[in-house]
């Protein structure tokens, strides 16, 4: 074994460069994306490498896409802009939540108060709340974890473009730990998921909730495989 072979395994790579290059396995990729949304310095590093390495794309020839691609984009956009079809009462109503939640942190706080009622806490144990921000910094979802009944309620807080043929999967990530799936949520209406008992200890203050885009039915691997579209930390009120 050469000298070179023995040194590297302990070597820490430049995570931002490796993320941009695309050499990371799925889990590390997802962790890099989480840091991207929460650490401005890391985001600046990634931007540096995107500027530098992006130039390599010069050598890839352009290929005109078939015309039906644009039609497909229009269809998917129209589908996502249609109002949610059926609504079950005012607390389940997306329009109601949007009224409170859309694009204003102050109003988002108001709907968090609403969320507490939504979760209908039977005990005095306070729920944990999280605002799941999109990469743009806008709130994408609001979540309330209710330790009393082991549920997490996830409410869309923004007009998200629904991705056809994709599922939205909710993950809990304990500090320094790996993501655990909590099930699928919906970008168009509130969803209450029951946390499996073995995962309840992970749903604590300072754990991160994240939502990723997955193949229909959820991640085939048990770890996030698609991009993380929103994430935020749980905190007690």
């Amino acid at each position, binding site marked *: 074994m050469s000298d070179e072979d023995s040194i*590297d395994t302990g070597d820490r790579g430049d995570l931002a460069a490796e993320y941009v290059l695309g050499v990371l396995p*799925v889990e590390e990729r997802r962790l890099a994306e989480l840091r991207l949304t929460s650490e401005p310095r890391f985001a600046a590093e990634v*931007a540096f490498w995107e500027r*530098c390495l992006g130039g390599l794309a010069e050598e890839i020839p352009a290929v005109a896409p078939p015309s039906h691609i644009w039609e497909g984009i*229009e269809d998917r956009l129209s589908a996502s802009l249609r109002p949610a079809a059926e609504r079950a009462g005012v607390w389940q109503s997306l329009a109601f939540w949007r009224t409170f939640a859309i694009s204003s942190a102050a109003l988002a706080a108001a709907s968090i108060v609403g969320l507490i009622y939504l979760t209908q806490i039977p005990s005095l144990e306070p729920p944990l709340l999280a605002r799941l921000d999109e990469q743009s*910094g806008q709130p994408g979802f609001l979540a309330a974890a209710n330790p009393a009944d082991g549920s997490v309620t996830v409410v869309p807080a923004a007009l998200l473009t629904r991705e056809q043929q994709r599922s939205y999967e909710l993950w809990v990530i304990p500090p320094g730990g790996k993501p655990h799936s909590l099930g699928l949520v919906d970008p168009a209406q509130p969803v209450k998921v029951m946390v499996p008992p073995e995962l309840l200890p992970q749903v604590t203050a300072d754990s991160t909730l994240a939502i990723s885009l997955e193949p229909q039915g959820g991640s085939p691997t048990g770890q996030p495989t698609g991009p993380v579209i929103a994430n935020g930390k749980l905190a007690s009120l």
Partner: protein
Amino acid sequence: MDAETRRRQLVAGIARVGRGDRAALRLVYSETSAKLFGICLRILGDRSEAEDVLQEVYLTVWRKAASFDEAIASPMTWLVAIARNRSVDRLRSLGSRQRDAPIEAADDVADEAPTAVDRLEMDEQQARLNDCFQELEERQSAAIRSAFLGGLTYEELAQRSKVPLGTMKSWIRRGLLKLRACLER
């Protein structure tokens, strides 16, 4: 149209997309889709996957346009990053099904492209990048290029080059260090 005019039009177009203007999305699409489709095809090596990912790319552009910041990235840099990220994500989620395909398959697909290559606008950093690549060892630069252009993991790159994983990591990491030192000079 010169590169600077094109860049300014794209910046304006993306800003309009960020305000929910669908006609502007159409404009950005017609200006950039051939380049981005080439990238998706190159990474995925499969036409129907690339077509599907290209749609996702522009839906992502629609969703994230409001957060585009000209001060951080040129419009092409931003778009290329979205196209690469969505393609790499798809490649990973396809898992082993796709991994058996030899890297040459991707080249074959790309070769079917029209020869009139649409040279995309990239700032002077492009020339700089080329110079800096010249300073790398041949195997370092080859590894970094095929990682970027093929969207492969360290493990896949090592298998294809028939070298131990640690060796591949070392080539790429050292190459990146040198590249960074050169680019920051």
